[in-house]
C-alpha cells in the first residue's frame, strides 16, 4: 500500500457545482505561455515538409482549434507536441521544459502532463470502461505496478469520479466494444483527465461521431477548458465548430500556419487562404448558419 501513496491524485472539481479556479476567465488569462513552438519543421520525405517553420504559443487555459484541409499537417503538429512524432527541427517548450532534450524517463513524465484523445478513440476494446480509464495512470506507475494493473484506492476513486462526471456510471463495467461512438470518446476523455494533465491534445475527436454526440463531446471539452482550466489544442475539420467553441483558431495549409487569431477575425478571405478558394462559398454559408 505504502508503495503507491506517491501516486496520490489531486481531486478534480465537478463541473456543475465546481467553482471557477481563482476567478479564472478568458479575458484575464495569464500571459505565461504553457506551450511554445518555435520554428518547428517536420520532414517525412525530403521532398515536401509536413510542417514548415511553425511557431506559436498557447497560454494556460486557452482553447485553441487547429483547422485546415486533410493532409495539411494538423495531426503531425499535434503529435510533435507530445513527441509521438519527433520534429525534424525547431524547439518546443512545455511548462518550462524544452521537450526535445528529454530522455526516456523524463519524456514519460512530460506525457503524463499532456492528455490525448483520438478520432478513433484508441481504447482497448476488450477491456472495461474502468480499466481503460485507469490506463491514464500508467505514466505514473513503476514497471511492476503497471504490468499487474495495480492502482491505488485513491486512483480508483478518482476514476469513478471522472466517469460519473462524464455520465458513464451505467457503463463502468461494460466492455468498450459494447459502447456507442460518443460513449467511447467520453471514455477517451476520462482517460486523459485522470492523468491530471495541463494540456489535452484532441486529434479530430468528433470526426467519427454523429452531430448529437459531437455536440456533447465538444461541450465536455469546453467545460474542461473553462472550469478546470486545462488548456486544449484541438484539430477540427468543421470550421463552424471551431468558430463556436474556440478562443483562438490556427489555420494550417501545406504545413504552414496561414491564420492565427480570434474566431471573429476569421473572414471569408482567410478561410479561402486555409482551404483554397473553391471551398470559400460553402464554408461561409455554413459559418453564417451555425456560428451564432
Amino acid at each position, binding site marked *: 500500500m505504502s508503495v503507491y501513496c506517491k501516486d496520490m491524485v489531486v481531486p478534480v472539481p465537478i463541473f456543475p457545482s465546481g467553482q471557477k479556479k481563482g476567478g479564472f476567465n478568458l479575458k484575464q488569462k495569464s500571459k505565461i505561455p504553457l506551450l511554445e513552438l518555435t520554428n518547428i519543421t517536420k520532414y517525412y520525405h525530403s521532398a515536401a515538409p509536413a510542417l514548415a517553420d511553425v511557431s506559436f504559443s498557447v497560454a494556460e487555459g486557452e482553447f485553441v482549434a487547429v483547422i485546415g484541409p486533410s493532409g495539411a499537417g494538423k495531426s503531425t503538429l499535434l503529435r510533435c507536441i507530445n513527441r*509521438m512524432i519527433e520534429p525534424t527541427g525547431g524547439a518546443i517548450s512545455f511548462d518550462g521544459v524544452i521537450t526535445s532534450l528529454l530522455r526516456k524517463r523524463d519524456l514519460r513524465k*512530460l*506525457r503524463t502532463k*499532456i492528455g*490525448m484523445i483520438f478520432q478513433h478513440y484508441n481504447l482497448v476494446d476488450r477491456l472495461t470502461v474502468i480499466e481503460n480509464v485507469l490506463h491514464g495512470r*500508467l505514466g505514473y506507475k513503476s514497471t511492476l505496478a*503497471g504490468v*499487474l494493473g495495480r492502482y491505488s484506492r485513491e486512483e480508483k476513486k478518482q476514476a469513478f469520479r471522472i466517469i460519473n462526471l462524464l455520465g458513464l456510471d451505467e457503463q463502468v463495467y461494460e466492455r468498450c466494444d459494447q459502447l456507442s461512438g460518443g460513449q467511447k470518446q467520453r471514455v477517451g476523455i476520462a482517460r486523459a483527465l485522470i492523468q491530471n494533465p495541463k494540456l489535452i491534445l484532441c486529434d479530430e475527436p468528433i470526426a467519427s461521431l454523429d452531430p448529437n454526440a459531437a455536440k456533447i463531446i465538444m461541450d465536455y471539452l469546453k467545460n474542461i477548458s473553462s472550469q478546470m482550466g486545462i488548456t486544449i489544442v484541438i484539430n477540427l475539420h468543421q470550421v463552424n465548430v471551431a468558430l463556436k467553441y474556440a478562443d483562438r483558431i490556427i489555420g494550417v495549409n501545406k504545413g504552414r500556419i496561414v491564420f492565427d487569431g480570434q474566431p471573429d477575425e476569421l473572414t471569408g478571405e482567410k478561410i479561402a487562404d486555409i482551404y483554397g478558394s473553391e471551398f470559400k462559398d460553402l464554408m461561409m454559408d455554413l459559418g453564417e448558419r451555425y456560428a451564432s
Partner: protein
Amino acid sequence: MPADIFAKRRNDGLIFLAVVAFLTVGSVMITQYDVLKSFTSIYRALAWGSANFYPNAVSMKQLPDILYKLWETVLMSIAATTIAAVFAGLLALLGSRTIRVNSIFSVIVRGIASFFRNFPLVAWAMVLMLAFSQSQLTGYLALICGSLGFLTRAFIETIDEVGNNPVEALQATGASYIHVIFQAVLPSAMPMMISWLLFMIDTNIRDAILIGFLTGTGIGFSFDLYYKSFDYHTASLVTIFGAIAVIIVETISNSIRRVIMG
C-alpha cells in the same frame, strides 16, 4: 464498359479451371498414376481392414499399456506446445510491426520463424536424432521446433491485427513499453493467441504419434511395433484410441475457444 467486366470474370473463371485441369492431367500422366486402380483399391483396403484390422479380445490385454503411452504422448505434446508458445510470444513481440523494438529485430525474427516453419517436422526429428538418439527428448524438441515457427508467425499476425491505435494511446499517457504490452497488446491479442495455442496442441498430438515412429517413443512407437509384428488387432486398437484422444482434446479446446472468444 460494364459488359466487358462480366465477360472478363467469366473468362478468368474458365482460364482458372483450364489451368487446374491441365496441372492435374499433366501430373497424372507424368507419374503414371492409375486413377481407376486407386479407386478400386479403396474397396480392397476396406475388405482387408474389416477382415484383419479390428481389436479383438486378446488385444484388449494391451489396453492399459496403450492408454499409458497415449497419456504420455498427449502430455508431451501439451508440454512442447506451451513451451514453444512462451518463446513464440517473446519472438512475436520483437517481430510484430506494431510494437517491435526496431526493424532489424523484426526481420531477424520473421526469418527465424520462417526457417523453423518451413523445415518439415520429420526433418527436425531426423536431425535431432543425431544429437539425442531415439528418446523422448528428441520428439519433444522436434515438436517445439515445429511449433515455434508456426506459433511465432501466428502470434505476429495476431498482434499486428490489434493495430497501432491503443498502443499509441497508451504511449501518449506516458506508459512504458512494458506497460503497453501488458495493458494494451496482450489483453487484445490473448484470446486469439490462446486459440492458436489450442489449435497447435491438437495438431501436435497428431504429429507426436507420427514422430513416435521415428524416435521410438510414445504411442507412435507402440503402433509401429504392433504393426510390424503383424499384430493388426492391437495396432487397430492403438489407432482407435489415438483418434478418440484427438477428438476429446479437440472438443475441449473448441469449448474453451467459445468461452474466451466471446
